[in-house]
């Protein structure tokens, strides 16, 4: 089975917008969570779930499925939104995010949602798990792809580079890592805390096939994945330049929204803006009510 929802490319921006709206709605309802990194990953997630990956929501453990490990576990709202839209569970369930016994735990937990490929939330670990999954595919002679969506901040963890060295050395060429390079971590700008540049060169020196792309350009994302898939003998990384909070002007590059959910008022403005009307957002800014994060 190919992706059940492999949509025509021109429809993907609209899907990404819908997913962003779901993220805002679910976080506002939950009253806590991480908007910034979910919004920055929205276009990448859209391309994976609605164009690239093959999977079967009715049979989440289907042996031939493509796998996605969300290493940046705090970005799970965008994953849950994509899974709901893909048919893993009803859209209404998104409103149970972070509630007692909900399948949609605050960070991804396989015990609660079997469609997940890994339990994550302690940063820097997903690439190792993804490498293990890719390795199992090699043992079993299956041709699925393993994706690992990572944050930029978590590449500060040493384990990331243990995994990178391993995958490079073992030529795990059915592994595609994607770094959501939104330039911020919780406490501020990456360049001020622990700059990882030169970033592309690091991956290349670990024997990876590395590409740098605009993580909000759907054609660029799709083209980079196609290029990755055509290149044999090396694992692949897409360094996707993104904007934290992308799509909601007052959240963009405002690191306050790394880990704080929007208020009802902010959510209303954000949803309106995603529908093309930024009047409420402008009014919020003009009223001076918005909190700003560290730069």
């Amino acid at each position, binding site marked *: 089975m190919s992706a059940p929802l492999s949509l025509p490319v021109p429809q993907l921006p609209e899907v990404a917008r819908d997913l962003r709206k779901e993220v805002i709605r679910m976080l506002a309802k939950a009253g806590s969570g991480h908007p910034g990194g979910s919004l920055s990953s929205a276009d990448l997630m859209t391309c994976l779930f609605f164009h690239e990956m093959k999977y079967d929501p009715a049979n989440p453990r289907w042996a031939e499925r493509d796998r996605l*490990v969300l290493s940046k576990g705090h970005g799970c709202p965008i994953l849950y939104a994509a899974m709901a839209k893909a048919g893993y569970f009803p859209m209404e369930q998104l409103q149970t995010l972070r509630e007692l016994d909900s399948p949609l735990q605050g960070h991804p937990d396989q015990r609660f949602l079997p469609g997940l490929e890994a339990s994550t939330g302690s940063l820097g670990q997903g*690439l190792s798990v*993804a490498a293990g999954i890719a390795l199992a595919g090699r043992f*079993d002679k299956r041709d699925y792809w393993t994706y690992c969506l990572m944050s930029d901040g978590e590449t500060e963890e040493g384990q990331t580079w243990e995994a990178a060295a391993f995958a490079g050395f073992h030529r795990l060429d059915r592994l595609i890592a994607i770094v959501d390079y939104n330039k911020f971590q919780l406490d501020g700008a990456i360049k001020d805390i622990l700059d990882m540049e030169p970033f592309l060169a690091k991956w290349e020196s670990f024997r990876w096939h590395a590409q740098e792309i605009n993580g909000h350009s759907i054609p660029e994302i799709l083209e980079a994945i196609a290029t990755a898939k055509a290149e044999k003998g090396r694992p692949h990384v897409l360094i996707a330049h993104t904007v934290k909070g992308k799509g909601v002007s007052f959240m963009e590059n405002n690191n306050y929204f790394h880990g704080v959910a929007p208020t009802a008022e902010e959510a209303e403005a954000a949803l309106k803006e995603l529908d093309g009307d930024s009047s409420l957002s402008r009014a919020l800014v003009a009223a001076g009510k918005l909190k700003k994060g560290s730069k």
Partner: protein
Amino acid sequence: MEKKLGCATRDAYGQALAELGKQDARIIVLDADLATSTRTSAFAKLFPERFINVGISEANMVGIAGGLASSGKIPFISSFACFLTCKAYDQLRMAVALPHLNVKVVTSHGGISVGEDGSSQQSIEDVALMTSLPGFSVMIPSDGHVTRMLVREAAFREGPMYIRTGRPKAPIVHTPTTPVAIGKGIPVRKGSDVAIVANGLLVFEALLAAEELAKEGISASVIDCHTVKPLDEELLVSQARTVGAVVTAEEHQIWGGLGAAVSQLLARVCPVPMEFVAIRDTYAGSGKPEELFRKYGLTASDIVQAARRATKRKK
């Protein structure tokens, strides 16, 4: 009790793995550059295609094992007990315990019987760490036979498991036909005044102690409690009820080991006087294993003294 040295428990692990490799192609063995020491090299020789030396990167090894297990493999991962449990604890938590995956963590060089290499190489915290991970089974086999049996059972029993083996040759305490099962203590010697509950190398010390105690007219039973979690509650409670005093003995820090587990059980079900032979909140150092056992209070004589104290406290 005559001391007959058998193989080291790590040797038995290597032999068991090599046999298991023939039986099931799902078994994949990973090591972090200590294969020669942990004895996974025995498997590597026979099944090089299913052995991966990940290099000196324990955290990565655990994550990979999680990915393999969630894809239907049965990964055995090995390193020294201190490195695997301490360096990769968060990975054991996130990639194995939390999703409750079928990963078998088998370490070598447990305890202070590592000897001359010194404190950085000696694991005295691993039982505390591993028993506190929900869903993990935790075992310390006493001799080659118990090791082989536990490793075999672990391979085909679903769930995350931890088995600690040791570096030196281990005295033989069981016959090759002694039944061994995960979670079931092995009564090794009968007694009526005090029960000595031990695991690992301390089982042999406990047997020596029981002989000494017999000379003083104290009748001590000895239980090989190789599985710390899940504890053999039935056996331990019935022993405590019958003899009325218990001594635990282990090659581990006193906090969070066998003694802690047994006392928690007995405090709840059948409180009796208890004494604990364990390392008392300190790191050890270099020396011969027997010298270290003496210095840190893990010998038969320490067990004898503990048993005397425990029996005296009986009402």
